[in-house]
């Protein structure tokens, strides 16, 4: 384990200069098309055939504002507040649910790490159930951030493993091996993004601005762990099961054509809580904590248990370790 694993990434306060040109272009586009839209709207407002209600007009207006909003890291506090209110209003208009959007930043002196006990995991998939409900995952596409692979006792062999078992678990002679986004210290998905829509936060979580993502899926092909998911259509989350406790960089409503992934439940962990998967696990196989705290449970495990990481030779430096009793 290299020492720089316990260093926060340097880009905590990005001034966003790399994005300057693109923002200006977007703004210019916004002014141009906004003028056209206003003209059209003025015409249609005079037309007796227009059936637009106030709510429909508001929805169109907010969707337009959403389309031309800035990159999250370049927003001022006022612009973020405005964006938050807009997203909450859009959720109300589209689904009729009252959500709250969190924008809490990384806590100083915190770097998240995860440990997974392959001796303890019994393949119940309770983590997946909690994750789906917590993160507003697409129920129609069966989107899941976590995979639990069932493997024959012996070496880790993902090719021979199955993640679609339906029999009673644990099966004799098998062990269970969970994967999700590992929040790598050297994430291959970040530099390949052509628009800078994904980046690593100071607490190690790799996040996506869903409003900036163009859906090219370069990050998905770069990830050696198959951690990212693409929305081929609007995520289907019935209003009655929407988790209203949302973070801008986490489980808020995604659009069609954007990439999403596990964020270690950023809306929970930034407030000191455990990720949903760790909290739901009935076996205690999942340990989550602060790598910078020498007295944390995860540091004890890294120091005292036999540990390994998946595809360590790729030098992605995952902050997700496997250990055994």
């Amino acid at each position: 384990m290299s020492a720089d694993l316990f260093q926060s990434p340097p880009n905590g306060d990005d001034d966003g200069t790399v994005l300057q040109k693109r923002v200006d272009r977007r703004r210019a586009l916004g002014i141009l098309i906004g003028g056209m839209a206003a003209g059209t709207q003025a015409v249609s407002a005079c037309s007796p055939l227009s059936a637009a209600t106030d709510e429909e007009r508001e929805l169109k207006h907010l969707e337009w504002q959403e389309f031309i909003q800035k990159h999250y890291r370049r927003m001022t506090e006022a612009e973020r507040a405005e964006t938050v209110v807009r997203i909450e209003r859009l959720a109300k208009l589209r689904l009729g649910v009252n959500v709250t959007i969190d924008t809490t930043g990384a806590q100083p002196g915190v770097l998240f790490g995860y440990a997974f006990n392959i001796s303890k995991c019994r393949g119940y998939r309770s983590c997946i159930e909690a994750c789906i409900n917590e993160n507003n995952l697409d129920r129609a596409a069966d989107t899941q951030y976590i995979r639990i692979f069932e493997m024959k006792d012996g070496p880790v062999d993902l090719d021979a493993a199955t993640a679609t078992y339906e029999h009673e678990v644990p099966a004799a002679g098998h062990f269970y091996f969970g994967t999700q986004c590992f929040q790598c210290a050297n994430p291959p998905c970040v530099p390949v993004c052509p628009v800078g829509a994904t980046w690593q936060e100071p607490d190690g979580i790799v996040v996506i601005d869903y409003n900036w993502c163009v859906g090219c899926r370069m990050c998905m092909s770069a990830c050696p762990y198959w951690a990212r998911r693409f929305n081929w259509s609007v995520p289907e989350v019935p209003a009655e099961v929407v988790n209203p406790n949302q973070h801008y960089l986490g489980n808020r409503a995604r659009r069609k054509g954007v990439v999403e992934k596990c964020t270690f439940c950023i809306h929970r962990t930034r407030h000191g809580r455990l990720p949903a998967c760790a909290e739901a696990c009935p076996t205690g196989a999942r340990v989550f904590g602060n790598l910078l705290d020498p007295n944390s449970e995860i540091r004890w495990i890294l120091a005292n248990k036999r540990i390994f990481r998946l595809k360590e030779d790729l030098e992605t430096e995952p902050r997700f370790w496997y250990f055994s009793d």
Partner: protein
Amino acid sequence: MTWRLALASAVGGAAAWLTTACADRAVAGDRPLQQSVHGRSRGVSSGDVAGTIAESALAIRNMTREPGALATVVAVTVRGWTGPGGRPFEVTLRTPGQTPAHARRFGTVTLRNSARTRAPNVGQYPCTSCHLGKRLTMSAKRVRDAHQNIKAPHPVQTGGACSTCHAADNVELLALKSGERATLDHTYRLCAQCHFSQADAWASGAHGKRLDGWQGRRVVMGCADCHDPHKPAIEPRIPFRAPRIERVRGHDE
């Protein structure tokens, strides 16, 4: 852009209201069990909080997030073990009928987070309703007649009797090898007499389960929260399978 101004003032108004609500909660939360600091656990004093609130409306919104369910967990400080770095930690109390340690809310669903549900009638039919003030007798016939519902492979396989773990004059107390007595809340003291490597891992966080937060109070489940002491092995079960629903909003929205 008047709507922007309207939104900004709305946020400001909400912020002012939340500030009051926040202060109320801080005053009300002086009971020890409610000192769970999730959501505000950055070691900030009240003065710092005031400063942060002044900074922006967003900060206030972010600070009044749901604090988690830890505040409802009844726990007691662990005796004889410390966590990593010698820090004391707490274990959930074995309170009959209490569910907070065993069920947590994820989005809109509530899931059990223990491998075992505690028998709901532990409080309803305490051992002392029969065994009060009487010494345990080891007549095999009487044990069989009265406890047919207790399948006990653990004492059978290890050659233990009731009094190996239970105090002979009060079955609701645990008899430790040192001669001490422990309540059922401190089962780890009894279990660790044989399962010492598991106890070490449990105290350090590699075995067992921490509840709710990686930050703040460290509250872990006790041995009997997951393992039936009479039958510690956990039954196999059918894994969760995500129900798939029909797409309503379509691909073209």
